[in-house]
């Protein structure tokens, strides 16, 4: 009885002690953005990446970050570029991580939901005699594996670079080269690029003075990739300021359209500017060029044959 009283008194003392040292009201903060990994258009063998930024409110000390993945049925597909444990160094307020999803070839179609947790903790553990607090954040995961190829993209931004007017060499009318830059997100699960880009060039009165579309193909984006791609379009319009009505196609569907300014400058205005070569010629000009080259080759061939025959006869 006496011993129990003594021990209880001791316990009381220690918790009072604990109170004294547990009144640390330091503000601890943590955050993530965006707090999710979501994709409802994945298919077998898809690869998808989501960048997530871990944010500390006051990075006064090194912290250990531990990541746990809890997405039933899909844990094995998910990886983090920094691994599942890494350091958040002192002074670094933002730490980006990239969560990758690699859907296996053999997988059941359907929705896979769960979360990824990021817990940050001091290297030394809690202060003795206290209930320490560890912070974390949850990344919601929703992955939908579908049995369908989705070929869609979103156009984020577009831009037209200044260009120089075309040039005439003999009968050949080399056009100016419009470089139309598109920031595109492949929102589907197959590689894709805009099938074509059309321009309608209008003068200041709104009259359509030229219609043109891209030459060559546009570089494809991998599924879920966000990238700038460039379409090149020929124009024979003279130097001046014009308005362009543009249309970006996915097959026959207009995905994005709008108006932009087109500034065509006199030749020599843009250092390093490269216009179109032979591939930019019109069909007519190109046809004439091919005919001339063909005729030249034919003449050369006949000449060589004549020389050979002549030499043989002499021999």
């Amino acid at each position, binding site marked *: 009885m006496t011993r129990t009283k003594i021990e209880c008194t001791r316990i009381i003392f220690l918790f009072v002690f604990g109170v004294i040292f547990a009144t640390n009201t330091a503000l601890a903060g943590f955050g993530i953005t965006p707090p999710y990994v979501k994709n409802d258009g994945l298919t077998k063998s898809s690869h998808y990446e989501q960048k997530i930024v871990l944010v500390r409110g006051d990075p006064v000390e090194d912290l250990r970050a531990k990541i746990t993945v809890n997405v039933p049925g899909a844990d094995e597909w998910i990886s983090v570029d920094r691994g599942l444990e890494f350091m958040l160094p002192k002074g670094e*307020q933002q730490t980006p991580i990239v969560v990758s999803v690699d859907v296996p070839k053999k997988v059941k179609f359907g929705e896979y939901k769960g979360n990824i947790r990021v817990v940050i903790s001091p290297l030394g553990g809690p202060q003795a005699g206290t209930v320490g607090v560890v912070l974390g954040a949850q990344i919601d995961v929703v992955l939908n594996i579908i049995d369908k190829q989705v070929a869609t993209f979103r156009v984020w931004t577009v831009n037209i670079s200044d260009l120089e007017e075309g040039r005439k060499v003999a009968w050949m009318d080399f056009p100016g080269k419009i470089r139309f830059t598109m920031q595109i997100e492949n929102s589907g699960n197959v590689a894709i690029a805009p099938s074509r880009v059309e321009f309608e060039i209008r003068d200041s009165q709104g009259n359509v003075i030229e219609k043109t579309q891209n030459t060559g193909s546009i570089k494809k984006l991998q599924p879920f990739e966000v990238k700038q791609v460039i379409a090149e379009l020929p124009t024979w319009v003279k130097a001046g*300021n014009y308005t362009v009505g543009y249309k970006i196609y996915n097959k026959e569907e207009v995905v994005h359209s709008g108006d932009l300014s087109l500034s065509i400058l006199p030749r020599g205005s843009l250092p390093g500017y490269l216009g179109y070569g032979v591939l930019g010629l019109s069909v007519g000009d190109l046809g004439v060029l091919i005919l001339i080259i063909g005729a030249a080759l034919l003449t050369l061939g006949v000449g060589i044959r004549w020389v050979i025959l002549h030499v043989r006869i002499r021999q």
Partner: protein
Amino acid sequence: MNERKAGKITISVVLVSAIIFVSAMAIRFSPFVPVHLSSVNADTATTSVTVVNTPPNWSVDAQEYVVSSTSTPTNASSTVTWVGTAIDDNSENYYLLLCKTTSTPTANASAAPTCAGGASNQWGVSPSTISSIQATTTYIAKVTDVEANDWYAWICDGNPANPRCNTTYKTGTGNTASPFVVNHRPAFTSFVDDSPKNPGDTVTWTSVSSDADVYGGQDLVTLYVCKASDFNGTACGAGGTYCTSSATSSNPTCNFALENPKQDTNYSAYGYVIDNHNFAALGGSHGSDSSITISNVAPSIASSSIQLLDTDEAGGLTLTSPSAQTSGFKVKLTVTDNNSCQNASAGQEIASALVNVYRSGIGQAGCQTSGNYNANNCYAGAVSTSTWNVSCTQDGGSCSGGSDSTATWTCTFPLWFLADPTDGSSLTDSTWFAENWLPSVRVTDDNTATSTLTEASSGNEVLSFMAYTLNTSQISYGSLEPGQRNDPVSQTTLFSATGNVGLDQTLYGNDMCTTYPSCNPVSTTSTIPKGKQHYATSGLAYASAIALIVDPGAELELNVLKTTSTSTPANANTFWGIEIPSSITLAGDYTGQNTFIGIKGEAQSW
């Protein structure tokens, strides 16, 4: 026979003598022969005759040396030249005399002849010219001359004794015949343009100009407008031509489609008028500068060119500063100005840009004034930079000069941590999942002309930013004896939303012991199980609160609202309590660790 023969000879002698006598008498008294036979001595007959001077004769008819006709008249102040050739039987020199009348001129001894009526009737007279050599006479046409001027060419000699003019005058033949035609300068008294004009417009120059010449048909006038004062008489020089009118009887006009772009300033335009014989006007407005004024026009922005971008220019707008502003978001745009992107002083044509950034539900009209500013959803450029530090500048190198109408601009700005998120696909994801963020921009040029406020045709999403602070790094339960507990739960941890979403939390923890983190072996006398810690969203009775469990823990619907004030974060307390098991016998410093996992709350609870 002989007698008869002798008689015949006598008769012959008598007849011959008679004839001689009669002839001598006839000669003596003839009025035509000034021979003074009377002075002849009766015995010596001296003969004498004076042959008088004869005038020169035409060998080549006089004519204009250079055609002066209705088709090719002689411009005033230019020279009319006549030529003609005469032969003088005496081989004397002769003069080619050009008179205004058909009256016979007066030949002068050892001097040039003069026209009848004097000098006023005379066009000109050649120098004394050797017989049979072509004589040349000139006349400088005067402004006061009439258009058609008859001329009559005479040839005269200057015989000292008996100067003579040929009585036949000549007037030329064909194109070189009389009259010679004098062309007068057109009159040009006014030259103006209808500027100010905008780039791309058509400027028209009008003139008050005419030509009084009508002989052979009304003379026509043509207006030339040159870019430099370099008209060479028939065309503008190297400076270039704005326009040339058609030939017209009076007041010619012409026009020119101005370049686009073109800087807003004054441009020289020199006017020149010539007639249809390329005879230019003189004085008046000839060569004067009408000075075209190109107006300043307002710049414009194509909505498709406006881009709302994240700090790294890819993806949605990512907030990364809890309880603070994240800097470096961008609005990029292309500004078009028909006065070009470079002004006449080689500076920037576009002086400034004003940008508003807002959630689409607020709309362009709802986010323009400083009163509209709301850190949650409307960043109006009208506020001071101390409120919203937006900065817009023209991108270096995006303007290539006066022939470039476009330049790109970039505005950088911060967003507060609580800017409404618009990502997701449901009302659980975000209250505003169906919206996005849009920028609208207005630019002002160097003459304070402004574009319309133009909204981007496509926007961007503000991503959810799940961030929080916890007001403590430890939980203190106070001093308790075994068997005692916090009832109701009363220790609090304050969870504050420092991002742009509402919050819930998941909680889990570990057992407490004095040898933490190693509480093994677990002893009922020295280990306080995690489940003895209870928590709730309010100060419930200990028994009603939720027992803490091990990882992965349990979600607590704390429902911290989304923060809407930059200075007062939304928050909620978690109430904690602990019960010290009665079995605990070891007094000491019990240590444990609880984990708070922040979770983005369901948007319906924000």
